[in-house]
């Protein structure tokens, strides 16, 4: 593990870590405040393939050595692991239930989301955040989102979304104020789906 970092350096991160992360953070805040609304990040990075530029920008903005990340086996390539270790210092969690952040392909979310930490009544902020990697913000099974941040309901259908996924996310929302907050990332955009959003999907 030692010589790997030495022989093949990881891909580059933000060119200005402080300002780039601050600009991305502002957009990520906006994404959570207006659920299901795709947003373009002002900065992306030359990320390892399995993570993608948006997933990598989210990771570099949100993670540091005091957070624990769980990576789905499809994401946990050597390049990604080394990239995150170098640029964020984030600690790998052994299982999804011990993580502050969980990164997964959207297809794995149905089985992973129910295992994440949802916070406690005293500290609902200690819930995990999930990053769902997708090919784009349309083409999947649609859901109608409403609630805080949305003046009128919006339709949201990220690629790879299924009715089973919306069903899991509805259960997540039913736990509010506990529950997981989700980001969808890929295809040039990110979108947020906080636990406070009400979800209706066609197949119910």
């Amino acid at each position, binding site marked *: 593990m030692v*010589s790997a970092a030495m*022989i*093949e350096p990881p891909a580059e991160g933000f060119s200005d*870590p402080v300002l780039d992360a601050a600009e991305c953070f502002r957009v990520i805040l906006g994404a959570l405040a207006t659920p299901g609304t795709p947003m373009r990040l002002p900065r992306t990075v030359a990320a390892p393939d399995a993570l993608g530029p948006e997933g990598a920008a989210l990771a570099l903005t949100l993670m540091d050595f005091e957070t624990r990340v769980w990576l789905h086996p499809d994401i946990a390539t050597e390049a990604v692991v080394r990239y995150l270790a170098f640029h964020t210092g984030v600690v790998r969690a052994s299982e999804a239930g011990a993580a502050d952040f969980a990164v997964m392909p959207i297809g794995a979310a149905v089985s992973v989301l129910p295992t994440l930490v949802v916070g406690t009544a005293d500290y609902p902020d200690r819930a995990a955040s999930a990053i769902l990697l997708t090919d784009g913000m349309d083409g999947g099974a649609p859901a109608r989102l409403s609630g805080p941040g949305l003046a009128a309901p919006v339709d949201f259908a990220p690629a790879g979304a299924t009715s089973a996924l919306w069903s899991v996310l509805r259960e997540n929302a039913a736990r509010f104020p506990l529950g997981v907050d989700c980001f969808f990332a890929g295809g040039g955009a990110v979108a947020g789906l906080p636990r406070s959003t009400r979800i209706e999907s066609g197949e119910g």
Partner: protein
Amino acid sequence: MTTPSSTNAGSPTGEDAPRKQWMAVLAKAPAKRVEALATAYLEGVADAVAPRFRVLRRPETGLVMVRGRAGGTGDPFNMGEMTVTRCTVVLERDGAAAVAGHAYIAGRDRAHATLAAKLDALLQTDGHHGPLMAALVEPLAREAEERRAARRRRVGATKVDFFTLVRGED
């Protein structure tokens, strides 16, 4: 100068001790001394083989939380922070894999961290390892040892010599 080969002098087999040692020497030496010796060394390198570096992580100042132990040996606790500056560069090499050089140096001296990262990369290459150890790392280590020894002699002079007052017999 020879062309650097693909092997790393530091830790090709996970043996990190030599690299840890030079990184410690570079971190603890006065920045001015590192700069003086490095400049002298690099001036002696022919232009054709002058090292080319790419910055992977610009020098950045942050904090390290210093931990102590309760009672000196017990459970750890967070004592307070210290400033540290880090930098990572990549040494590009023709016909060989690039080498990453890292530095984490106490304090806020960006130039010191950048130079130490470059030297860390060079020290991992066969071509530069030997000459750099002789021209830079070993002299810096020696100077540090001399400073420490001089201080230990002065501190040693403040050691208490107890003597017992003997009472007269009569």
